[in-house]
């Protein structure tokens, strides 16, 4: 049984337009993937593809107008969609989040140590005296220099990289099963990024946790993830283990993504992408990528089915694996 398995998840943003008509943005359109214990999954895609929305759905953080209209999220075989938000014994304890902006995600009015202790006490994972020792130990594990002094530090005294380490400590302190990192290193320097990811990867492996890393940096996926899912317009268009996806990308969007990296441009020249992402308020029938795709055929007006090419390497395309020449 997978640790987490998302089945046909549909999330819509339903709001009222200027003419009082209900308008619907189809933000997630049948997202399915699963993750085993001990694995790290990378989710890539452009802005608006639904990466963060998928994470927020798992965490139960969706707020109106966003609404899950269809699908299930199974965690250890149990559907966690139905849990009451406030009394969740899963969120914050078994599934945790490393947020994107470290400087704004810590409580500015509490010392680092107090925040780490409060998290354990709130979730009932440690009593007051153990909590201090655990918090100190966690700061050590994420390689914060002089941890006993940092326990008394205020968030504004930390650099961006330090604050992100504290948040990693916070996300791991209750020994979760799944850690979701939403763009964990965006805005951090290259050297700091590599150290943070090394630390995260090491701790996830050491404790047999699973992790989902949301990013738009293919380099992070290539070196820190076991599996990857590529999202486009609210669908997972390709999923598989990292080595096979990079070696033989099946979906034309994945192919164009890999071709857009500076290294590939240097090798093969520029591949022109002419159209923007599709309008989620007005998604047509069929493949959502067809307007950008250079091998679109009449059959692409019908929705493609997920096809499995190698074991565990799947794509949502009528012509999987055919190379593009544009």
């Amino acid at each position, binding site marked *: 049984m997978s640790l987490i398995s998302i089945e046909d998840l549909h999330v819509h943003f339903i709001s009222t337009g200027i003419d009082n008509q209900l308008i619907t943005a189809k933000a997630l359109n049948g997202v399915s993937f699963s993750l085993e214990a001990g694995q790290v999954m990378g989710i890539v895609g*452009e802005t608006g593809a639904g990466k963060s929305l998928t994470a927020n759905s798992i965490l139960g953080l969706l707020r109106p107008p966003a609404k899950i209209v269809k699908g299930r999220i199974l965690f250890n075989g149990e559907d966690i969609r139905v849990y009451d938000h406030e009394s969740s014994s899963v969120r914050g304890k078994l599934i945790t989040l490393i947020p994107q902006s470290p400087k704004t995600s810590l409580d500015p009015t509490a010392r680092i140590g107090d925040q780490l202790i409060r998290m354990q006490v709130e979730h009932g994972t440690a009593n007051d005296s153990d909590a201090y020792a655990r918090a100190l130990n966690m700061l050590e594990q994420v390689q914060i220099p002089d941890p006993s002094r940092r326990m008394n530090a205020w968030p504004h005294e930390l650099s961006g990289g330090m604050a992100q380490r504290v948040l990693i400590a916070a996300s791991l302190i209750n020994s979760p099963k799944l850690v979701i990192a939403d763009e964990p290193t965006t805005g951090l320097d290259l050297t700091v990024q590599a150290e943070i990811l090394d630390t995260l990867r090491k701790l996830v492996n050491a404790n047999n946790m699973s992790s989902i890393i949301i990013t738009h940096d293919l380099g992070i996926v290539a070196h820190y993830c076991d599996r990857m899912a590529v999202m486009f317009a609210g669908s997972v268009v390709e999923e598989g283990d990292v080595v096979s996806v990079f070696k033989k990308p099946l979906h034309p969007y994945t192919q164009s993504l890999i071709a857009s990296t500076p*290294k590939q441009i240097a090798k093969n020249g520029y591949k022109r992408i002419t159209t923007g992402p599709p309008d989620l308020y007005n998604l047509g029938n069929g493949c959502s990528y067809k307007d950008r795709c250079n091998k679109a055929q009449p059959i692409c007006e019908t929705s493609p089915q997920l096809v499995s090419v190698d074991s565990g390497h799947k794509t949502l395309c009528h012509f999987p694996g055919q190379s593009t020449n544009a």
Partner: protein
Amino acid sequence: MHKPLIEICELTKTFPSAGFDQVLAVDNVSLKINTGESVGLVGESGSGKSTIGLLISKLISVSSGRIFFEGQDITHLPERKMRALRSDIQIVFQDPWGSINPRFPIGRTLSEPLLLHTVLNSAEREQEVKILADRVQLPQSTLERYPHELSGGQLQRVSIARAIASKPRFLIMDEPTSSLDLSVRAGILELLNDIRRDTGLTLLLISHDLDTVELMTERLVVLYLGRVVEQGRTSDVLSNPVHPYTQTLISSNLPPDPSVILKRLKATGEIPSPLNVPKGCLFGSRCPLFKADCAINSPALVELGHSVDMSAKHLAACNRVQDSSYKIL
């Protein structure tokens, strides 16, 4: 022999901080940029890359040192005289949302530099704005729109169009693609490449993305805490880095290819505070090659043996390079 279009000499910039503290943002940086060249400036945040861009474009004043444009000293040129040069030196900022007037339609944003720097009449300006939009591949309909109606990639195209409107000879780009998606980024880089090919524009690209710099520039300058630690041809520096900081930086880069095996070097500790820079080598506290004299002697840029091209010498500022036992990490 190329003639430098831009030359900065021993440029230093300090910012006042709380009390009597001074933040040393740029420390004694010298650099020549030849006509038609594309130079990359890389370094961590706080290394002074953006400050150098602002200093050259004269948006902030220097603390000491000199800036020359085509041999003319523009360091203390009064604003009235500087205005004539502004059409030649343009800058594109990192954040397109924050650098385009939200109350102007795009067409007006693009006609503003034409109004200031050219003698075109209103009909000619309108015509020129249309040509500019075509140049950066924006549909004509965007000219009537407002910034909030455009995507980040489109806005960055507007920024570029605005910067090239006055036909500058020198363009500074401060992290032009760091807020953009990968596929959008590729489009912007292609556009810049086309503009350079067509106009022979001289470019200073400020970035922390080594892959982008490798693709776009011929020469590279690596900054650490406001000082140049290494410079040379981009290919020399990236494939044969000499300074331990450059090596650390390159080893932290993640190529988008899982078959590349990473060789990770770790710089221990944090970048020192620019409020209180250490004596001697600035990288000393984090350097794996540290020896006692690094805490005393501030290393100067020295030429390395393998430079061929005289205009792009490979230089590094490291006390250890001269040691007989020195070897690349």
